């Protein structure tokens, strides 16, 4: 009989974490606790309906309720959600198909500019017509278009690179990230398309008037700001839902199996009748499409895009999410995104603030023999500014010590399990013979 303990513990933890977050909506640790329970929902085995209910309650009731008291929470969680969707998209490329894409932010940029240019006055710089286009229905149309532009760019870039050994793709995508940034930075002349380094603002958002009434019924502050926070939060959740669904369905489909086959052994896959370039292109374009749509949503949410948002650092951040979670693992991609985004957006900043506080107050750490006055701490030590070092370390350490990630892909886990079983059987057999 299987024990019920894990799910009971999870339920208790969920209640405790929710209470904490509702009581202290500004506390980082409470948010970490809630995310920890969500993590638990993803990693406990069995009890599917119960896990699902707990996760839904946390995502749709607890976090929004806490968010109405602290809009920063919405900001944080929505940004995390955008990262999560992107890491799921990159997971298809890197994890399933085994293609190293180091310019993933480029597709994000293309999606973002797709809507930013037409959803602001920018488009009237180079074409006639009345701009900005209104948020309804054009935001949704352009989000769909961003899927296509993302996939198209992916195909164009992938075509030359994917015909060769995998390493070339890494370099080409690395270069692509730079090219897109430089182009966006300089395409304010001769024709002003991207408005160069100043970026584009303000960008239209879809109207949310319909949300104000329900907010009023719930007795909440019915301001457009809160409505937009909730709208983007729910929109991102919905997109994540769709992306997860697509991921799961693809994983077990002909495409997914072909991707995994290529990842494991290109030559064997080709011998099985899989067209390499074709299949790789599909994976690459699918990943790019996800990035594109998130870009469009990001542009509307931020109201502002500029080339500085889409750097190599952004691509590597998303890569670190996939690697930390586990290449090819859908749950891993989600968990990795939560962990890295939280680290990046909240934990490092808090730690920096903490150090600044210690320095300013001249706190003296006394450990018996050693004592250290924090007033002497160099102002160069600011963890929030050293993301590159931290993400670099995550990548290297994961590769050396746990290349399959925190939550290894189930295929991989099965494979390892089988190996262990076989080894045990072999041991048992030899004992029997002796």
């Amino acid at each position: 009989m299987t024990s019920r303990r894990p799910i009971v513990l999870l339920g208790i933890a969920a209640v405790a974490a929710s209470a904490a977050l509702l009581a202290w909506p500004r506390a980082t640790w409470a948010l970490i606790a809630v995310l920890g329970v969500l993590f638990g929902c993803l990693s406990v085995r069995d009890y599917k309906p119960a896990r699902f209910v707990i996760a839904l309650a946390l995502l749709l009731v607890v976090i929004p309720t806490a968010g109405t008291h602290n809009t920063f929470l919405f900001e944080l969680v929505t940004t995390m959600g955008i990262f999560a969707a992107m890491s799921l998209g990159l997971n298809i490329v890197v994890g399933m198909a085994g293609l190293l894409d180091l310019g993933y932010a480029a597709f994000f940029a293309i999606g973002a500019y797709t809507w930013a240019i037409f959803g602001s006055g920018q488009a009237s710089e180079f074409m006639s017509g009345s701009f900005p286009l209104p948020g309804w229905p054009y935001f949704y149309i352009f989000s769909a278009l961003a899927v296509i532009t993302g996939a198209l760019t992916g195909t164009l870039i992938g075509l030359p690179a994917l015909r060769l050994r995998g390493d070339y793709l890494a370099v080409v995508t690395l270069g692509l990230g730079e090219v897109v940034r430089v182009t966006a930075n300089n395409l304010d002349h001769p024709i002003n398309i991207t408005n160069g380094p100043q970026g584009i603002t303000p960008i239209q958002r879809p109207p949310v008037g319909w949300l104000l009434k329900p907010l009023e019924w719930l007795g909440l502050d019915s301001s457009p700001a809160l409505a937009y926070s909730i709208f983007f939060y729910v929109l991102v959740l919905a997109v994540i839902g769709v992306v997860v669904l697509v991921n799961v369905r693809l994983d077990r489909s002909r495409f997914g199996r072909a991707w995994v086959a290529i990842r494991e052994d290109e030559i064997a896959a080709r011998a099985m009748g899989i067209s390499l370039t074709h299949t790789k292109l599909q994976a690459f374009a699918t990943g790019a499409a996800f990035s594109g749509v998130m870009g469009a949503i990001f542009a509307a949410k931020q109201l502002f895009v500029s080339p500085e948002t889409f750097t190599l650092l952004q691509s590597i951040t998303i890569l670190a999410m996939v690697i930390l979670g586990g290449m090819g693992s859908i749950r891993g991609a989600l968990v990795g995104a939560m962990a890295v985004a939280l680290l990046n957006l909240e934990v490092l900043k808090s730690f920096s603030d903490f150090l600044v506080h210690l320095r300013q107050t001249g706190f003296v750490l006394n450990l018996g023999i050693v004592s250290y006055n924090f007033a002497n701490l160099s102002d160069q030590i600011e963890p929030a500014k050293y993301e590159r070092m931290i993400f670099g370390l995550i990548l290297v350490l994961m590769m050396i010590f746990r290349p399959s990630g925190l939550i290894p892909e189930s295929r991989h886990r099965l494979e390892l399990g089988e190996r262990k079983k076989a080894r045990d059987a072999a041991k048992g057999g030899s004992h029997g013979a002796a």
Partner: protein
Amino acid sequence: MSEALLELLPSVLLEGLLLGCVYAMIALGYTMVYGVLGLINFAHSEVFMVGAVAGVEVYRYLGPHVDNPYLLALAALVVAAFISGGLAMAMERLAYRPLRKRGSTNRLVPLITAIGVSFFLQDFVRLIEGLWHGEFYMNYPADAHLEAMHDLPLGMSIQNKSIFVIAVTVAMMFALDHLVRRTRLGKAIRAVAQDLPTASLMGIDPDKIIARTFLIGGALGGIAGVMFGLLYSQINPFVGFVPGIKAFTAAVLGGIGNIYGAMLGGLVLGTIETLGGTYLFFLTDGALGNEYKDILAFIILVLLLLFRPQGLLGKTQGEKV
């Protein structure tokens, strides 16, 4: 108009040659490591950057005591070569060798490690420089003698430091050629590049040879860093990325794994880039300018992969099962 362009041509070519020297020296590091391990060492761009930073430190501490600018530049080159070579070797020992020993079949693992090392080093150097000097933007000091111009025929003029850079590059290339073709170490490197398991059966310790390949490639990268600093003066911990990706393009252009290809590819790429950077502006009537020259290298890379992936001097190799 076209006469003016023609008049400019010799100077532009010379400028391209100088840039090409830097690219070629970096490209050698990529191509040698690729030759023995089949790995694109993304962190090589940071080896180059560390060389440039080491050079600045030499200037900072030795500058006030040494009068001869050439001696000073040589000291910077030697120190940078040692530090960068050592760094490349340490990188191999700490990050890449554990992966190799585990015998992982996943092709992505070493690549991801390499990009991780690269990112780590950028901020690490930034942190060290920040703690050491309080800032991480650095300059190579200008020296009147090194900047002095000589007039050449065809309207060209050349600075002393440019002559120095070309001389160092030529000397290093001859030295490398000698090392690879005429010494036991060179023979061993070629053997490992050709077939690692068989080489190890012939009494060659592949770990030792790989470490030394990293050392040599890293030292060349460090020298390139100092040359870059002498030519363009401004250095920071993030300066390695763009020259790094271009040098890789140069290595592919020449045929990756081929040492002479890397030299040729570097020179060709430097020339094309400078030509493009100068003439793009004139050809498009000022619509597209110098800022697109970084993209030029990338376009060359993509075209190359489409039409001649084996590069100028490379040979096509069948895939082994």
